[in-house]
């Protein structure tokens, strides 16, 4: 097991190197030389050169990349072009907000989706099923930023129940969490349903019923645990999307999270912040995926067996 975790952590390295390179390359093609946007209008060519050196923008792409990786290994993500702050520090300042949002989002989504998906599957083709599936489809089709706007319009402006933005207190997280959570909940409901339907067809449920297990236990004990496996997969995959989707919620609700950090930094051509934040986010996503895989092992002994080998 430990060896497996170690192996997975080691596999993280090439992925992170790749991510760093990808972002590096993308930002390199990006229009606009960051030196000129950082330098004032009156900068002389000499000042520009000094600045370029200072910003670590001298040398070829590969040279810069290698330098960056060298620093990265020492835990140094560089300093922001704009604020001159340590990118790691800035990132860590933002991370709790994003994690708070992501966690609540996931909790809300799972809390809604799993019971709904199970009910839909168990009562396949009933009114309950159709209603929850239609709702899920709508949830899936609604662009989340639009939903965010509608929520603001209704709950903040009309009813005044929740603040429209900011990061203070529980009340301010409610609307962003619903915004990001809706599509996730919709997706999870659908996954739960189809995974549950799949499991409900399985022979071992027949075995359980033939044993005299009550219908409730057949569903809650025998079926659910098996149905969880694909749900967990989706969960892992969606974590990166929740982080991504939160960019928009963060914009709409002025939620100072990592997504906004990246978007703002891109806006300012703040390459160290963009790269640093994306590399860290990737790391986070990968670690979460690793955790998800470990949860897998917990739920499904067959997978555990694969790991221990």
């Amino acid at each position, binding site marked *: 097991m430990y060896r497996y975790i170690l192996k997975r952590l080691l596999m993280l390295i090439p992925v992170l190197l790749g991510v760093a390179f990808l972002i590096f390359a993308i930002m390199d093609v*990006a229009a606009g030389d960051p*030196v000129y946007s950082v330098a004032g*209008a009156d900068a002389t060519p000499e000042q520009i050169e000094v600045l370029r050196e200072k910003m670590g923008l001298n040398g070829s792409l590969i040279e810069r990349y290698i330098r960056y990786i060298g620093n990265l290994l020492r835990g140094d993500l560089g300093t922001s072009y704009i604020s001159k702050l340590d990118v790691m520090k800035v990132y860590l300042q933002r991370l709790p907000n994003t994690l708070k949002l992501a966690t609540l989002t996931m909790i809300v989504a799972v809390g809604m989706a799993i019971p709904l998906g199970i009910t839909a599957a168990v009562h396949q083709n009933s009114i309950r099923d159709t209603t929850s599936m239609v709702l899920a489809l709508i949830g899936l089709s609604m662009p989340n930023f639009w939903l965010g706007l509608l929520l603001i319009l209704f709950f903040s402006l009309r009813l005044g129940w929740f*603040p429209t933005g900011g990061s203070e207190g529980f009340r301010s997280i409610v609307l962003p969490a619903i915004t990001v959570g809706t599509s996730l909940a919709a997706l999870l409901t659908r996954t739960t349903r189809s995974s549950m339907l799949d499991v409900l067809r399985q022979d071992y449920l027949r075995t359980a019923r033939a044993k005299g297990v009550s219908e409730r236990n057949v569903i809650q004990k025998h079926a659910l645990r098996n149905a969880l496996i694909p749900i967990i997969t989706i969960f892992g995959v969606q974590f990166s999307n929740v982080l991504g989707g939160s960019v928009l919620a963060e914009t*709409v609700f002025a939620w100072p999270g990592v997504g906004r950090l990246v978007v703002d930094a891109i806006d300012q*051509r703040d390459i160290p912040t963009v790269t640093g934040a994306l590399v860290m986010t990737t790391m986070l996503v990968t670690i979460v995926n690793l955790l998800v895989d470990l949860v897998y092992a917990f739920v499904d002994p067959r997978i555990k067996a694969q790991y221990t080998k």
Partner: protein
Amino acid sequence: EGDLVPSKTGAIIQELVADPNAVYQDTITIGVANDVTTLDPQASNTDANMMAFELTHETLVRIDPATGEIVPGLAESWEVSDDGLTFTFTLPSGVMFTDGVTPLTANDVKYTYTRAKDSSFASAKVSDVVDMNVIDDTHIAITLSRPNQEFLLLMAHKGMSILSEALCAADETNGPTVGTGMFAVEEWVPGDFISFVRNDNYRGAKAPTRRIVFKLFKEASTRLIALQAGEIDVCIDPSTIDLGYIQDDPNLKLIQTQNVVMLYVAINTTKPGLDNVHIRKAIAYATDKLSMIEVGFDGKGTVHNNYINVNQFGLKKDIAAYEYNLDKAKEEFALSGYKEGELTFHIMTDKEYKKNAALVLQADLSEIGINLVIDEMETAALKSTLNDPALNYELCLYQWTDADGTDFTVRNMYGSTMKDGVLVKNGSNRCVLTDATLNGMIDAALVEADTTKREQLYFDIEDYLNEIVPIVPICTSYINIGIKKDVTGAVWRPTAKHDYRFICIPEK
């Protein structure tokens, strides 16, 4: 209400009633639209940063918002030599930086100004300084290369805030963030908020509010709602469309004053087509400034026909404006020798309101046979394209904010400097003018000691510019601020660089 009437400079000054027994709200939160990006006064020139420096740092001299006069700042007094070339400043003694341990000396002034020469943001302000002589701890003499009539104005700019040599030397990044101001930075979470805490050792009158927070709300509507909900005390720049909500809300007050920021179409006069003055005039005639104000500022703006900012010295009120007139535009176009549809220009914009303005121009230019392509860009990309010596742009919707000195404006926007035998455009000369005649006119105006003559010289410069149309000025808008009714003590400047040092809410 009396305190909402603009002063001579256009600033709205909310006088603080001096009541020694008054108790004030502990923290004031200001909802801002733009993030503070740096705490080093010489590393940026955005409004957001300037407002922070106003709290944390001090310049040698200040501009009195009521009269526009230069008044003492950090310097208690100053003397000018008869030739107008040497300024001797006297500093108070015993001033400490906000870290509480570092004393201020005249050396720090020298250090600051020397450091400014290396800053691409501040160097233009000290370009005439040829010598600095620290006489003693409290005296410094600064010598200029020419009798710069605007030198004190430049020194009042927040970019000239005095830094501590000792602190900067010890910590290159954090040193410059410490000033002698009434506040010190408490916590800065970029992208979220920055908070300032009162400097209780300040030598003069203490600030009434202990803590000031700039909280970032990028969405204008969200920002206003936050004000209405009482989450913040001040809402900078609410959406013009929403101003009614402030006026209708009994708990809120709307501060409104004309903005000096000039929106203009910068024309790269070196590009084919745009090097033709008739085309430039055609563009000027085809610019429907009123519609642009309507869509960009919801009608809350004033047409601007001048080439310098409102309220600046030498503004020619009766300049012969290019009124919106498509027929004249077509005439000028015909004179240019180009055929309809032959020309396609790209115009760069960054913000939503500029994009809307560009859309209006696009529609009008298509009427006279010029295609306009709108390139929406991020602010930083736009800035770097403008600053890039390659000058790969044609048109750009841009703005000019500086109201400090007329010379600074014309020199930067239209002037050029001789380097290695060729004229090179100055930093903010977005129209890429390299016009020796114009340079001569600018230099002459700078050193002219007689105010009337000097004003006439600026009128001439404006007329000259009006003929060659290097830019098309569009409009100035209004500065809008929503505040809680009880907020007072602030100075709301037409440059949007508000002064919050004395902002407060008296407790009832």
